[in-house]
């Protein structure tokens, strides 16, 4: 008998690289490879057979096999062809045929979808850029400077190669004596990223901090950390030093307004204005401090005995 051509492949299937998971026609695969499978047969029962395949972007017509032949199998056995190097974010169609050990090939059979599968390989977000730090009121903090608020705003621009990904900005803020280990705060997710902020705090006062940031997508995929400041991680990115309350005023005195002679306790002022003096101080350098007064009319005169006592809060100018 003369050798005959193999018959058409049967039971075509496309599977992920685990060889188990079938990919529905037109479905998206998140890897740049795919396995093609079919059952092979040949009228010449003794021939060994292999699967020949052609995989093209849907916009490209079929022209001939472009995939390495699969391993040879016996007649009526399933065979595989492994397709690698697929282009991301591309739709493909494919066809297969049976080849035998004599070099003869059967007819092509297309899988039938259009597209048959789509390659969309997820990528991690890009490292964040334009990192910034500011006080809670939005005023920027110069690298290494100390803020007088315990809430800071950390910002960065995040992006991702995959359109539509939901991106968050994660930050890790630690005292400079503490090494980085895990994120401490995060922004809310935003489609496609952009400039994002994380409000951090309240942070303990009298402490210097360093921080880093990274982007995270909706799958939890992250980019590498980016440290703020371009300085060694033993260096301070910002410090927190909350202002302290002033000390209680000291050396209080009450003086006559004209000659500034002291009015003894319980004494009389012949004027309707009185000068109150005191020494004010504050543990924070650079603060201005004023004397704040509260006076109370403790006893009314006999002129209007029914007038109730009243209080008068009189915050006044300093010095």
């Amino acid at each position, binding site marked *: 008998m003369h050798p005959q051509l193999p018959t058409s492949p049967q039971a075509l299937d496309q599977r992920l690289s685990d060889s188990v998971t079938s990919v529905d026609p037109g479905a998206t695969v998140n890897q740049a490879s795919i396995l093609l499978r079919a059952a092979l047969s040949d009228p010449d029962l003794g021939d060994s057979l292999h699967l020949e395949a052609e995989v093209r972007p849907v916009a490209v017509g079929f022209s001939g096999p472009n995939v390495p032949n699969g391993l040879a199998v016996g007649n009526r056995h399933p065979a595989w062809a492994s397709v690698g190097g697929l282009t991301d974010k591309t739709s493909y169609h494919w066809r297969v045929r049976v080849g035998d050990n004599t070099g003869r090939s059967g007819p092509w059979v297309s899988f039938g979808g259009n597209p048959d599968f789509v390659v969309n390989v997820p990528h991690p977000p890009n490292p964040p850029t334009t990192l910034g730090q500011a006080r809670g009121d939005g005023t920027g903090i110069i690298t290494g400077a100390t803020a007088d608020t315990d809430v800071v705003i950390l910002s960065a621009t995040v992006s991702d190669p995959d359109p539509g990904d939901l991106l968050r900005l994660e930050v890790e803020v630690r005292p400079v004596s503490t090494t980085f280990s895990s994120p401490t705060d995060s922004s809310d997710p935003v489609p496609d990223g952009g400039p994002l902020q994380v409000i951090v705090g309240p942070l303990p006062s009298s402490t210097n901090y360093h921080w880093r940031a990274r982007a995270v997508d909706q799958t939890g995929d992250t980019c590498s950390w980016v440290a703020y400041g371009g300085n060694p991680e033993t260096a301070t990115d910002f410090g927190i030093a909350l202002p302290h309350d002033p000390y209680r005023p000291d050396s209080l005195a009450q003086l006559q307004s004209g000659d500034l002679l002291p009015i003894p306790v319980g004494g*009389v002022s012949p004027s309707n204005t*009185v000068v*109150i003096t005191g020494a004010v101080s504050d543990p924070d350098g650079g603060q201005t401090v004023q004397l704040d007064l509260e006076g109370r009319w403790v006893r009314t005169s006999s002129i209007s005995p029914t007038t109730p006592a009243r209080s008068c809060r009189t915050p006044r100018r300093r010095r």
Partner: protein
Amino acid sequence: MPNASAASVTVGPLADNASYHWQARAKDNVGHTSAWAAFPITLGNPETATDFSVQQPPVQLGFTVEPVSTAVGAAITPAIQVTALGANSQPSTGYTGNVTMTIEANPGGGTLSGTITVAAVAGVATFADLSINRAGTGFTLRATTFLPSLTIVSAPFDITHRKP
């Protein structure tokens, strides 16, 4: 670095004839405040204690009880009252200085007798025993203080002959 400075506050205008007590605290430029410090610091400051009183000196005198026509030699009754008044025309209740009474208009050539210098009590000087020994029409009296130097003349009144 802690900072320190002397600060002062001028308080007023305060009501006259009133007593006050007060407390102070320090307040920095970001609104932080210290605890209140009562005056005087060493003695504390109960709510009922007076730290100082305002008693402004009188700026004028007023006859709150004018002399009335009276018989020769008899005490002018009701007793004449002169009140020290503040700038608000209210009595200077803290004033306790002397008020001296003299005859200003003396149509009869009389002599004023009795206690002519009286210390004010709560701003009011009361002359209970003044009399004039000659009759006449249109007498007036002048009330005077030394510190402050104030004076005022009464409304005219008559000294009449005694009825036989």
